[in-house]
């Protein structure tokens, strides 16, 4: 039965021509179906990304007035800490003098600040996300005087650059803008 049907089909369309036409229809239908399935899957995946309210809550303004030279403060931004450091002249000079081209994530200090006095970095270790210690005067600052991540031993310098340990990158610099001399907007 089947074979006679096949033969009739072939007779009607001509074997070669009929098959290519059919193949094309199959492919086109398959591609269309795959596109439709992907379009239907996207909302199911994208719902997991940050929601509108989460995104809306993602900028903060920080008053820099009370921060003394040499002082470090920690503010919360997008659920994670941001380190703000008012660096002393010596610290700026020291961070600038480092031969940065040989560092694991080479970056000059000048590229990491808008005003050399103010270092603003996200305080999340680029290894696996712990918060490096060093923001409070009593805390360990690591071998390079910046921060030390206790989780797996990463040392950051006074520019927030990774100097030693498993972390691959420097502490990231968030997007920020000085609204005035003493007010900064992060995010």
């Amino acid at each position, binding site marked *: 039965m089947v074979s006679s049907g096949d033969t009739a089909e072939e007779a009607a369309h001509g074997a070669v021509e009929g098959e290519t036409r059919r193949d094309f229809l199959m492919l086109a239908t398959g591609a269309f179906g795959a596109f439709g399935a992907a379009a239907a899957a996207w909302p199911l995946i994208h719902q997991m990304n940050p929601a509108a309210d989460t995104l809306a809550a993602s900028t903060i303004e920080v008053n820099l007035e009370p921060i003394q030279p040499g002082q470090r403060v920690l503010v919360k931004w997008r*659920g*994670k*800490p941001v380190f703000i450091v008012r660096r002393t002249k010596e610290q700026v000079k020291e961070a600038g003098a480092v031969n940065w081209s040989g560092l694991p994530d080479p970056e000059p200090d000048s590229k990491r600040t808008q005003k050399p006095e103010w270092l603003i970095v996200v305080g999340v270790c680029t290894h696996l*996300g712990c918060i490096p210690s060093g923001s409070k005067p009593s805390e360990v600052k690591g071998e390079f005087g910046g921060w030390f991540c206790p989780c*797996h031993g990463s040392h950051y310098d006074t520019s927030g650059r990774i100097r030693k*340990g*498993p972390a691959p990158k420097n502490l990231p610099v968030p997007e920020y803008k000085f609204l005035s001399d003493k007010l900064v907007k992060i995010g």
Partner: protein
Amino acid sequence: MSDSKFKNPIVAWIDYRLPVFTFMEHELHEYPTPKNLNYWWNFGSLAGIILVIMIVTGIILSMHYTPHTALAFDSVERIMRDVNYGWLIRYVHMNGASAFFIVVFIHIFRGLYFGSYKSPRELLWMLGVVILLLMMATAFLGYVLPWGQMSFWGATVITNLFSAIPIVGDTIVTLLWGGFSVDNPTLNRFFSLHFLLPFVIVGVVVLHIVALHQHGSGNPIGIDTKSPQDTIPFHPYYTIKDLFGLGVFLIFFFGFVFFAPNYLGHPDNYIEANPLVTPPHIVPEWYFLPFYAILRSFTADALIFLPFSWLMTAKLAGVLAMFASIMVLFILPWLDHSPVKSARFRPIYKQFYWLLIIDCFILGICGAKPAEAPWTYISQAATAYYFLHFLVIIPLLGFFEKTKPLPTSISEPVLKGGGGASVAAGAKPMEKA
């Protein structure tokens, strides 16, 4: 219907339309089982029972638990203090997770010793590895729910593993979090998935058992059953043995639940999560320690992946190695091509088997220690040995090991009096299976 094998007319009526009783009779009663299974064969059914315990206690916990960052910790404390028997249900669920891993690890090492992964049981074994992966995911998600310090920082460290993936890593992490850090959206979805995955595990367990019943259980000698003389019906022989094992297990288990319920946990998880303070020393639950040690053994100082350094960071290498440590189990049936299954007849393999167990314990200890010398070096060596075992030693043994002669049947060693203490008991052959 009158010729049904069931005497009870209601059972016969139902079975004629929906053959559940035939199915049970076939899979449990008639199911022929090798007569020489030892107690290492108890751990499969034990794992199944624990899965049921976890689902029952889990559903009860979720009747009282609140998946919100501001309320989760207190809702768990309320379960512990105010809900009637809440402390019992939670401690059973908490220690049940540990017991589940102990039992499944023993079950897996049983398989490694007796070569249970070999033909024709490769898929059975691979389904088991899938169950292990799902269990690890479930336990990780569950540990986040009480929203203590270890919950939060464990979740942070583990989700950050995905940022090691080149190019799309950070996008994936944001997708997992539903925000810019582990936060309320993360907790909500973790609860949803923690509820779901155990039922997925049930599904894979069913497939695992279908695959098992296709060729039947292996046995400590590792040769096929050849005649009805070699087998006994599963029920009542092994149902009663499994029940006895369950009794012994429950004594140990409730010893923990009643007398040392927090022995295996970390005290920091009774401190509420604080996103701005990392505990000085983050450790995962004990069952993840060997994997955690493999993850951390790749430090920036290790130069072995230098040729790939443009793509391969220490972080990515650690993550890949950790996943690879389980993936080697997937391909183990093909890495080990020795025709002899049981380590009883593989004198050299048997020694390497014990070395592997020691290696896994060393990895576990390293995983619990801070990442500093000498522990980093020890875990690097132990990680290297782990892969050496599976990728080099096992394949080579297939070529070079001189195995001992196999008995001709399961009954032979017993009948000849080679079976040690059980000689007298086994001396009389079974008349009929």
